[in-house]
């Protein structure tokens, strides 16, 4: 089976601060991988480097075992099929919900693309809000809208940065169900999240980062039992 994202010897520095330190990890197609860890562990930085927002000092990131991502632009990475949802809900506030999703789809404007947009709005539960401005949506709805914008292009790697931050319990459950539905054999999903119950509900495996390195990799149940993980993160 091909590895969706292969990170090898990745180091990222901001000035003298080393956010990611010689990190290696492999994420397979078909899995939901949660990346957890205390603040400053390098979780968002990892997503930033994979999506091209930040640059690596050394190391490489292979997508689909063929594309090196560390030297590509954000737009090129996105077009190759690696897309991410940002931590803060990032939608185009002055545009309608439908326009937002259409922009996520790219250029096409045929009947097929209209169907795709309608289908994804149905999936995230925003069909009734398609003609409203994105700015009028509630926080949770904006999170779902951004997921729809990212997913409508059918990315092979989907990265979600704190998708349930600020959501109610009920909204969190709906988001968990949504993530499970987005899981397909041809797609790798990477989730950064602090809500451990949510992580347990969606993740096939978790990677615990600490000070820019991998501290633990395995199931959530075993992570909860791991003394080092409890010590630096879960026990706090």
């Amino acid at each position, binding site marked *: 089976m091909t590895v969706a994202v292969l990170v090898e010897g990745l180091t990222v520095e901001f000035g003298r601060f080393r956010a990611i330190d010689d990190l290696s990890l492999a994420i397979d197609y078909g899995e939901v991988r949660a990346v957890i860890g205390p603040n400053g562990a390098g979780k968002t930085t990892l997503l930033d480097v994979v999506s091209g927002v930040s640059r690596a000092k050394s190391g490489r990131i292979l997508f689909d075992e063929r594309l090196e991502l560390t030297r590509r*632009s*954000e737009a090129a*990475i996105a077009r190759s099929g690696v897309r991410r949802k*940002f931590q803060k809900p990032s939608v185009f506030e002055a*545009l309608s919900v439908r326009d937002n999703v259409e*922009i996520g789809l790219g250029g096409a404007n045929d009947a097929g693309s209209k169907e795709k947009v309608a289908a994804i709005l149905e999936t995230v539960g925003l069909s009734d809000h*398609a003609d409203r401005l994105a*700015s009028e949506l509630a926080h949770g709805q904006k999170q779902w809208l951004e997921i729809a*914008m990212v997913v409508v292009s059918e990315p092979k790697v989907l990265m979600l940065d704190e998708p349930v931050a600020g959501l109610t319990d009920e909204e969190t459950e709906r988001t968990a169900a949504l993530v499970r539905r987005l899981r397909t054999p041809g797609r790798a999903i990477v989730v950064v999240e602090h809500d451990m119950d949510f992580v347990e509900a969606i993740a096939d495996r978790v990677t615990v980062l600490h000070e820019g390195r991998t501290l633990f990799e395995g199931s959530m149940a075993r992570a909860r039992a791991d003394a080092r993980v409890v010590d630096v993160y879960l026990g706090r």
Partner: protein
Amino acid sequence: MIAPKKAYLARALDDRVFSGVAAATLLAFAAVALWPGLSGYRVNIVGQLACFALLAVALDLIWGYAGILSLGHGLFFAIGGYVAGMHLLEQSVATTGITPDIVQFMGWTALPNWWGPLGSFSIALLAAVAVSFAASFAFGWVSFRSRVGGVYFAIITQALVYVAMLLMFRNDTGFGGNNGMTGFQTIFGVPFQTPGVAEGLALASLGALGLTLVGCRLLMIGRFGRLLVATRDDETRLRSLGYETLRLKLAVWCLSAVIAAIAGLLYVPQVGIINPRVLSPELSLEIAVWCAIGGRGRLAGAVIGAVVVNAIKFSLSATLPELWPFVLSALVILVALIFPNGLLDIGRWRPAMLTRPGALQPKDAPS
């Protein structure tokens, strides 16, 4: 559920304020063309206002839609203006044979040889478009590639126009120094005093304004416009959806610069002079003020702002010119306090908003 698709042009006129402004432009065009009672002075004012409105529309494209504030748009206006000046001097000399003042005070014996081709209007028009495009492309490419944005971009554009002004004030630069170019005798071989010349220039300006308004509106309600708004709202998000925002920004920046140059090209024959004062930072700031007062991101607001502010300026300059800076400042403060999104918000204003500052800043308003 897909809304029935209206004809594109019909959708362009959906916005009542926009339709109103487009209709007013058309009405002004008809008045200048058909109403003999309109004095030459009034016609000239209308023509100048149309040029300022065109300039404001140019700025609204990049500031209102793409969120890129330029405080140096006088530069592109001046490019059009200087090209118009050279064109008018060349063909005035060709028609009348009178040596213009610029030849004397620059210490020349005749106009520079390389100005010659600019005597043809089509070459002058082409030159204005090409030079403004080249200048904006070079500056935009460097700035947007380095991801300079927001207030930094605004400050650099302000510095740029200031540098251009200092350069043009020097006689050595070769464009008339602080005197600039004036003393235009004829346009298309017709003396400026001939009845109908002022009308023709005003009609050309109003026509350019009307066409630009409708053209830009069509462009802005389409995909390109939506992507510009997306760039303004969250450029990082748009990039991470696979769009090269550099191209989008560069395209609208160059379009805006070319429109500003055309405004300058139309303006100079109507005022009879071009000098480095159009490159003063104050004028460039004023363009932004017109847009802010009228309301950004809807094209109509830019026209309203430019016309309202300049109409007040014209009427004051006849009576109390020294009051103008105070009136302008007061206007800016008032609009900022009461209508943060410009005069387009008048319809939504309620007295209660006076006691609740910021109440008129709902998230859905174009920001």
